[in-house]
């Protein structure tokens, strides 16, 4: 993908702002939203399925209760008719036989007079037992004209029985006795198994005590012990019919069949019994399986989509952009041969961008190589110039010194007496030679600076000592023009500082010389003071001042205000250039504030380097 050196540049792109991080965040958010949506859908599906199951079970339990109520109501109605028939028929046995034929659930029919004597009886199996029975408490109920339903008797035949007593009234409405039907509740089996609840759901009936009266497996109804007691719901499920039927929500518990079931119940209206329905939870949740499959399908689709987006984004966008980034970094760090290579198939906008980038990189490489070559030539040219200048200065100063020396000898009369005219000419030679020497020295300094041969030498020095030295050295110029000259050293300055005394003096003497040169009245003042971590030296004069446009170039080499000023005031035009270069070499700077006709102020700012342990020989 990337040729040349690959450079990591993570620092340039924050982790939070990188495309990969942003992409990861968005994918994470999308994944989280998808996951939450799937979870919500699953929860909704589960609750929806359970609610559907609840509705089904509610309908089924109510339907079962109605079915059992109808069964019992029909039986009761038939028994009432049979009771009436016993008062009109000559043969109770025929009446009973017909009733037994109609109702397989009737195990025995008896007609008992008010005294408790069994007047007639017919059993489905066996012979009549025409005996007296003790007066039963329920007789009074029946005598009052009410139907009596006994508690469930489970001791006989191992199946639950219940006795239903019907009042038998004669044609005048007078109570003649009770028709007692012994009902085999196991016959409700066919009613129970007729209740359909899904594939494996089931219904069963209990009395109010939780005794199971009818269930598809009669072996469960019979607990099969010696006492032939019936199964009790609380023993099998830990529930009571009241709790199951009373719960408006769906009950989930271990059902009669031993499995985890959902169940609901409904109380019968004819007797205090309960129709309970249960469906294995696994079957009840079968409706949720398509939802699960749908959710899994949706999940696969979303994951595939996200994966596709990630793969596309990584390969088509992020990776090319990272390649571009790395390429740019490599070029920035100097690897001009760096190029971006993207797959040939990536012929989209990013591919075009990479192509443009490569073209740009090629041009940058060419231009940079041209600049490097030009720069090298320029540096070599400067070096040769400086070397030439230094050599030239040295070669010029040797004969010039000889000229000064001999002119001095002549002026001092050591070469014999000379007349005034000759003296004047020799003085001209001497003065011009000195100007030429100063010029050469300045040129030599410039050449040294540019050639990098000038080094700063910092030594401890007392500012006050410097001030005295500069005062002594420059006072003659002030006196010559009758100017005021003052050097003020701030008491805030450290007693000793580190400075290159020779170069600092070169700066200040140069500035003071200029000040005296361009000042005809008034005076010159040098101020030395600290300014934070800086040493500030201000040379203020009341001279001719500098016009604003000249402030831009007075520090350039060989530049004075104009030719007239050079002629009027002399100088090489290199002084301020040297001053500025020296300030820079000392890690400082120089600036000027000037008003034409009022004077100028040159402000030199240098790093203030106090001497912490004073050196006695440099004390003021």
């Amino acid at each position, binding site marked *: 993908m990337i040729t040349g050196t690959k450079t990591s540049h993570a620092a340039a792109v924050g982790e939070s702002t990188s495309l990969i991080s942003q992409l990861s965040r968005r994918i994470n958010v999308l994944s989280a939203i998808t996951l939450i949506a799937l979870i919500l859908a699953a929860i909704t599906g589960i609750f929806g399925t359970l609610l559907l199951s609840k509705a089904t079970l509610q309908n089924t339990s109510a339907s079962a209760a109605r079915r059992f109520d109808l069964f019992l109501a029909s039986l009761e109605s038939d028994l009432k008719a049979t009771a009436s028939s016993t008062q009109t028929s000559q043969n109770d046995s025929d009446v009973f036989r017909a009733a037994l034929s109609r109702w*397989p659930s009737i195990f025995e029919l008896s007609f008992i007079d008010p005294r408790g004597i069994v007047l007639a009886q017919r059993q489905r199996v066996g012979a009549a037992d025409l005996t007296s029975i003790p007066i039963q408490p329920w007789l009074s109920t029946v005598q009052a004209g009410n139907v009596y339903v006994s508690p469930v008797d489970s001791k006989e035949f191992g*199946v639950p029985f219940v006795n239903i007593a019907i009042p038998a009234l004669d044609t005048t409405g007078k109570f003649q006795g009770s028709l007692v039907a012994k009902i085999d509740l196991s016959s409700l089996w066919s009613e129970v198994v007729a209740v359909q609840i899904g594939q494996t759901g089931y219904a069963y009936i209990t009395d109010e005590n939780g005794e199971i009266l009818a269930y598809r497996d009669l072996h469960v109804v019979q607990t099969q012990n010696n006492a032939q007691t019936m199964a009790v719901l609380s023993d099998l499920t830990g529930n009571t019919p009241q709790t199951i039927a009373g719960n408006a929500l769906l009950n989930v518990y271990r059902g009669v069949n031993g499995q985890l079931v959902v169940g609901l119940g409904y109380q019968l209206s004819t007797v205090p019994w309960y129709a309970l329905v249960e469906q294995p939870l696994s079957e009840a949740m079968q409706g949720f399986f398509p939802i699960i499959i749908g959710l899994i399908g949706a999940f696969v689709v979303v994951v595939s989509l996200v994966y596709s987006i990630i793969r596309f984004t990584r390969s088509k966008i992020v990776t090319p952009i990272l390649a571009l980034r790395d390429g740019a970094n490599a070029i920035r760090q100097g690897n001009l041969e760096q190029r971006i290579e993207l797959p040939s198939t990536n012929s989209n906008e990013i591919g075009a961008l990479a192509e443009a980038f490569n073209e740009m990189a090629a041009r940058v490489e060419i231009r940079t190589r041209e600049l490097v070559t030009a720069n090298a030539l320029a540096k070599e040219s400067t070096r040769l110039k400086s070397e030439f200048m230094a050599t030239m200065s040295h070669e010029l100063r040797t004969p010039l010194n000889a000229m000064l020396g001999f002119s001095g000898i002549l002026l001092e009369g050591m070469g014999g007496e000379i007349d005034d005219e000759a003296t004047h000419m020799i003085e001209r030679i001497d003065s011009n030679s000195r100007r030429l020497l100063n010029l050469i020295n300045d040129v030599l300094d410039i050449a040294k600076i540019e050639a990098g041969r000038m080094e700063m030498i910092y030594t401890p020095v007392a500012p006050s000592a410097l001030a005295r030295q500069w005062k002594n050295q420059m006072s003659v110029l002030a006196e010559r023009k009758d100017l005021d000259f003052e050097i003020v050293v701030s008491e805030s300055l450290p007693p000793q500082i580190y400075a290159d005394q020779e170069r600092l003096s070169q700066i200040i003497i140069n500035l003071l010389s200029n000040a005296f040169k361009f000042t005809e009245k008034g005076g010159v003042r040098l101020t030395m003071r600290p300014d934070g971590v800086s040493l500030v030296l201000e040379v203020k004069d009341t001279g001719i001042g500098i016009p604003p446009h000249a402030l831009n170039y007075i520090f350039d080499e060989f530049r004075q205000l104009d030719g007239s000023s050079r002629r009027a005031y002399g100088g090489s035009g290199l002084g301020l250039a040297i001053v500025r270069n020296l300030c820079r070499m000392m890690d400082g700077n120089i600036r000027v504030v000037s008003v034409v006709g009022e004077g100028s102020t040159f402000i030199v700012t240098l790093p203030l380097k106090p001497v912490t342990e004073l050196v006695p020989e440099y004390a003021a």
Partner: protein
Amino acid sequence: MVRISHMKFILAASIAISTLLSACSTTTPSVVRVAVNFPTGISVGQDMLNAVQLALKEADGKAGNIPVELTSLDSSDPNGNPVSVDLAVSTTKAAIADPSVVAYIGPATSDQTRATAPLLNAASITQLTPSASWPGLTKPGFSPGEPGIYYPTGQRHFFRLVPSDDVQALTATHWVKQMGFNNVYVIADKSASSGVLAGIFEANAGDQSLTIIGKAQLDIASASPDDLKELADRVAATNPDVVFFPSGDNHGDRMLEALRTSDPKMTIICTDGVTTEDLSSQAALLEGIYTTDISIQADQLASAADFLKNYQAAYHKVPPPFALTSYVAMQIVLQAIKQSDTPTRAGVLASMGNLGSITDSLGTWHFDTNGDTSLTRISGMQLKNGQWTAVSVVS
């Protein structure tokens, strides 16, 4: 790349698991078996087994393309009861333990069927009986807990190819009327079946304009000869056209002997319990008495002509009672296996509910919602020369 590999792995694993589950769900046994439980230690049981084998042989040992084999269980105790309930239970449990057994034919008697039906129901194995006629096996009102006690799963698995005893008693009223009798004396012994049959006959006699001129119930097995004679004389004194005596306690010969002794010309109609009793010692005395029989002799049905011919060709004798229903039972099992979505126990049981109308050697019929045959046709038999001989088909 790792994620891609995981996804591919999960996808591949899902496909593999689905394929495996799919393969497992559609795997079928190479051979399915039908358990046949008859008292093969006695001739009637062997004849019933012969009929089943004939049906399988005629189907080339297959139900459609599925090979079928028989697992013959013998519930006859050579040293005791030829129709042992204990042996029926133990052999049935062995059959249930064999997962390749998908259907079951037998046992021969109602007692054996009462004991085995709950076991087979719990195992969801289809059970067909060619001979057990106790009505409580399929219908309520005959004994407490019936019929639910035989169906612990709540699903019917029991199918009967003979009319139940209640149908026999009901049909007996028709036969009595067809023979021109009006006044009937009803005698029952103390067995449950006898009481039920007597009660049903009595309850339905009026529909045939029969008059019950007397009825009696006696524990014949323990009754003294004087008790029997007293009852017989009492019956004879009423001068009935016919005596209906549904013998059910295997001691009916005592009552029959007492009745014929009291009146040698007394017309007596029994039910098929009497056919299993040894009457040879009183054959002359009892000559001409009638009985109903839930089985149909093959030579009485035009639809069974092929069966009669094939059975005789195979075994060189006339097929005895219940051979025809045994033969048809096997044909039905083969049809159910063939029609099942999967030849499993559950598949065959579900298939039984979809048989619809059946046309075979018994004629055209179907199973009702209780699993009983819709046929109400029974045989009318008469004792001639000491042998029970079919004289009529009654429905």
